[in-house]
Each structure stands twice: as C-alpha cells, then as structure tokens.
C-alpha cells in the first residue's frame, strides 16, 4: 500500500510490479491522462500544485479505506506534481485482488476519493495564452493570465 506525489513521469510497469502477488487473479489500473481539451477550450499543458505532506496522508487514508471495504490484496496511488504535457499520466491507481469485481470497485472508489479529497490544484494553460485554475469560482479561464 503506497501513495506518493511524484515530480517525474510515472512508470506504470514499475508501479504495478510493486503490487505483484501470486494470490492475485485480477489487477485493475486507472490512469488519468492530460487531455488536449477541457470544456471546449484547447489545452496545451497543465500544472499541478500539491500540498505533498497532507496529500500523501489523505491518500494513504483512502487506500486504507479501500483495503477495509473491498476484498482486495493491495492498492497504490501516485499523483504527479508540477508541469505536465499533453498525454502525460497525471495520476495512477492500481489494485490487485483475488477476484476482479473487487479490484474494479476499489479502483473506482480510490480515484473518486482522490479527486475530491487530496489537496491538489490543477491549472490549465490554453492555446490563446490564458490559464485558469480548474474548479474554482470567479477565476474562470480567460480572466486569469498565464504567469509561468
């Protein structure tokens, strides 16, 4: 069970290897990829600001919850911080279990909770030079100018 904030690109095969278990018959992974569009605007890349200590603490709590609620063997979650390009992996969640149903449910649970509970903020950069924090009132893209 491990939750980490990484400033370097995530390596799914290495992360998966950390969950290897000969008792496991099913493995489910979720990857969040940086898209080229969001709400109709062309995105060129994004920046994740993370409060690392609290993000890891909350992430580990979520993984523990999943281990308690679902019949799984192990689970992990890694999230990127800093600048990301299109197509990069922003977040990786992996779950190994004896049977597949529990792996699907736990993986879904973990990513849903991670997205709403971890102190992580996403700033999108747009083709026209603007930028904006996602999910934040009164600071819609186009009103805030990029200052990287």
């Amino acid at each position, binding site marked *: 069970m491990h939750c980490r904030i990484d400033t370097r690109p995530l390596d799914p095969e290495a992360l998966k290897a950390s969950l290897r278990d000969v008792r496991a018959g099913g493995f489910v992974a979720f990857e969040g990829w940086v898209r080229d569009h969001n709400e109709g605007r062309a995105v060129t890349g994004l920046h994740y600001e993370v409060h690392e*200590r*609290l993000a890891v603490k909350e992430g580990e709590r979520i993984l523990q919850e999943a281990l308690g609620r679902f019949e799984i063997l192990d689970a992990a979650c890694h999230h990127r911080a800093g600048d990301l390009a299109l197509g990069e992996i*922003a977040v990786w969640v992996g779950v190994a279990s004896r049977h597949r149903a529990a792996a699907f449910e736990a993986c879904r649970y973990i*990513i849903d909770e991670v997205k709403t509970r971890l*102190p*992580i*903020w996403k700033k999108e950069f747009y083709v026209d030079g603007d930028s904006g*924090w996602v999910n*934040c009132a009164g600071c819609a893209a186009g009103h805030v100018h990029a200052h990287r």
Partner: protein
Amino acid sequence: MKRVSVEYFAVFREQAGLSGEQLETRAASVGELFGECALRHGFADPRERCKVAVNDELAPWETLLADGDQVLFFPPVAGG
C-alpha cells in the same frame, strides 16, 4: 487576540498576492478566520467547496482557533 499563521494555496495564493501571513485575530473558529481572510483578499469560492488544515491535519470549519495555530486554506481541489 490570537496570533496565528495562515498559508494560501493555488488560486487563493494568487488572489491574495501572497503565500502566507501572520495575523492577529479575534476569530473564534477557523471558519470565522476564513471569512475574514476571504473578505480581505476577495476569495470567490464558497466555503463549502474549500478545505482547511490546522496544524497539519484537515479539520472541520468549526474547529476553535488557538493562539499559535498554523492554518492552511485550500481552494476547491482538482486532482487527477
């Protein structure tokens, strides 16, 4: 009066124009303190969508403020 330190993240940091400050306040709870800071710096996000951590732990808005507390104000999160 209590002396507390406050830190701002992401859009709050940009809207406040600073990442943290030392404050003297009569606010009873961290929620009350947030109200003061939001008004002064023009934070637009409703409190229900924001989070607060006190002394390195996420905490409810009703948490009573104590002298020397370290308070972190988090705007709406967007991981993934």
